[in-house]
């Protein structure tokens, strides 16, 4: 069978997506610049980068919506361009815009997509339950809130039980509560064994959801690893913050292991690679009021990789 023959095995794991030297130009602009990606089966993969970094174009190339100017793409071992109808039933795509048939209800919408993919209509009910739209089944899509529309759009991309799901900024423009609800749905999708590829410009989202994160900027993939490895790989210092006045700046600088101390907006901020002795010393001086300890985040990773602050 072509499908299994085409799949590359790396360390016993099947790579469901492989790209090599992917390039896409829009006139003068190189939106995607020699992108190499491999995504193992079952991974929750995040493509992280600021707006305009090339996330969506990369995703569209992999989905087979756009023709690459150069490079190779294999999804489930198959070429994606030109439109590969045998591959389409095995991938699910959720687009940035909520693309629905106008004036259909939630139920009718899902029913229509079930028909388009020739799957059992019992999937409609399952999808409604999965994304929690039971009470909206008779509501027309025009009357849904942003979060509900986003969940329906994910349900439509899952109706045919695809092996890979592509989600393009699924939580953009959602309020925090709706974002969290959606995260639960996305986790559930991945837990079922599906490969999920998601683009996002939210660092926290990538850190919380993804097994692997690819950081992309100016069309180039800067690095790919687990969020944990990316952060610890930085060897960055911990930041310890306490209320101002609990201890003097000079005194703080004298604590063993503290590399720097400074006053920032009414707080004293210390930086150290070894937080235990510093915290002990602060506790001994009864100076733990307003304590916050933060490690490095993906934002620091981005800063280190690009030399500039991350702005979504």
């Amino acid at each position, binding site marked *: 069978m072509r499908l299994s023959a085409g799949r590359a095995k790396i360390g016993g794991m099947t790579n469901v997506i492989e790209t090599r030297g992917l390039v896409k130009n829009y006139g003068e602009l190189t939106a995607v610049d020699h992108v190499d990606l491999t995504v193992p089966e079952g991974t929750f993969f995040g493509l992280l980068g600021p707006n305009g970094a090339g996330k969506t174009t990369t995703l569209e190339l992999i*989905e087979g919506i756009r023709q690459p100017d150069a490079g190779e793409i294999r999804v489930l071992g198959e070429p994606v361009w030109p439109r590969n109808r045998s591959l389409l039933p095995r991938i699910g795509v959720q687009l940035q815009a909520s693309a629905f*048939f106008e004036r259909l209800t939630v139920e009718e919408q899902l029913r229509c*997509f079930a*028909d*388009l*993919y020739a799957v059992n209509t019992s999937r409609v009910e399952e999808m409604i339950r999965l994304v929690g739209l039971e009470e909206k089944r008779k509501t027309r899509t025009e009357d849904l809130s942003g979060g509900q529309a986003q969940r329906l759009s994910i349900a439509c991309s899952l109706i045919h039980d695809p092996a890979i799901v592509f989600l393009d900024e699924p939580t953009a423009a959602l309020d925090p509560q709706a974002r969290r609800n959606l995260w639960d749905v996305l986790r559930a999708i991945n837990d079922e064994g599906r490969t999920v590829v998601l683009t996002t410009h939210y660092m926290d989202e990538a850190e919380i959801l993804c097994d692997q994160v690819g950081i992309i900027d100016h069309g180039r993939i800067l690095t790919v690893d687990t969020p944990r490895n990316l952060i610890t790989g930085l060897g960055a210092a911990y930041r310890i913050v306490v209320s101002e006045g609990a201890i003097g700046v000079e005194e703080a600088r004298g604590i063993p292991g503290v590399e720097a101390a400074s006053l920032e907006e009414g707080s004293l901020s210390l930086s150290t690679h070894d937080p235990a002795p510093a915290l002990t010393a602060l506790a001994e001086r009864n100076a733990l009021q307003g304590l916050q300890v933060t490690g490095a985040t993906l934002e620091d990773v981005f800063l280190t990789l690009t030399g500039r602050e991350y702005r979504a």
Partner: protein
Amino acid sequence: MRTFRALARAQWLGFVRDKQNWFWILAFPLMFLVLFGFLFRDAGASKNSLAEVGSVAVIDQLPPDAKAQFERLFTVTRYADPAPALAKVRKGDLDAAVEQHGSAVVLHFSQADAVTAARVQGTLSAFIDGANMSIAGVKPTFELRPEAVEDQSLKPIQFIAPGLLGWAVAMGATFNAAMPFVTWRTSKLLRRIRLAPMRTEELISSRLLVSLVVAFVQMGVFLGVGVGLFGLKLTGSWFMAIPLIVCATLTFMAIGLIAGAISKTAEAASGIANVIILPMAFLSGSFIPLDQAPGWLQTISKFLPLGQLNKGMLDVMVRGQGPGAALVPMAVLLGFALVFGLIAARLFRWED
């Protein structure tokens, strides 16, 4: 087949649930039908108004059958004095005034309306000739017996209904193809359904089915209102209007697809569709019958798809021609459909 059914169903629901669609495609053209229907209700039997000043013996003493015919053509008002009668003729309230002095019959008319004046003059002189001949005891050698080639009861509605129906069908099919595809392209629904294992033919044919159903609803309502309200009489092979409408829907759907392909927004598509359909409707005799139009206009209409549809429908629906009369217009429409269809296929875009 399941894909086709799903797309047709979704498009049908999307269409019927928008009340605006029903207005533009059904209520709006129907308004014209009702308006024209009432406006021209008695136009076929229009009488001329005639003032009889004093006693005009040649009219008063017509034999009974001639008298009856005279009354079908003229509404006679009697005046004792010429002055008020002439004033009315001058103002155009009356078509003419007639008085008799001895053997001279004087007809007063206004040059402001030369056509009416000539008609009244001609009709009246025919009666006077008849009177002269009967007094002279001459038996006429020749007799003119005018007979309309159409059904004797032919009323303006017979011409209005097919023309307006043609316009409605053309409008429906064009807008139904232009607008949804632009909307779907901008909402990225086209991209989304293209990510499903759907064939382009399934998408286009499902849209065609919806447009055909809409066209037949239009036909049913138009004929219903025409027959029920205005006494429209359909002639023998009216059913040939059905294949004619199928061919026309193909043509106008292709035109709509082109309009949609070259437009960025649904508003622009609607504008382009209007710019194509409205002038075409005028040039094709949808609003004004082409029988009285100048020759060049009749020639132009032959080269317009709507002109062909209207001609075909008039021939089979009211002119009493056989089913064969629809074949040439159908062939021309299919030719148009093929050409526009090929252009539409070249221009069609899935993405902006």
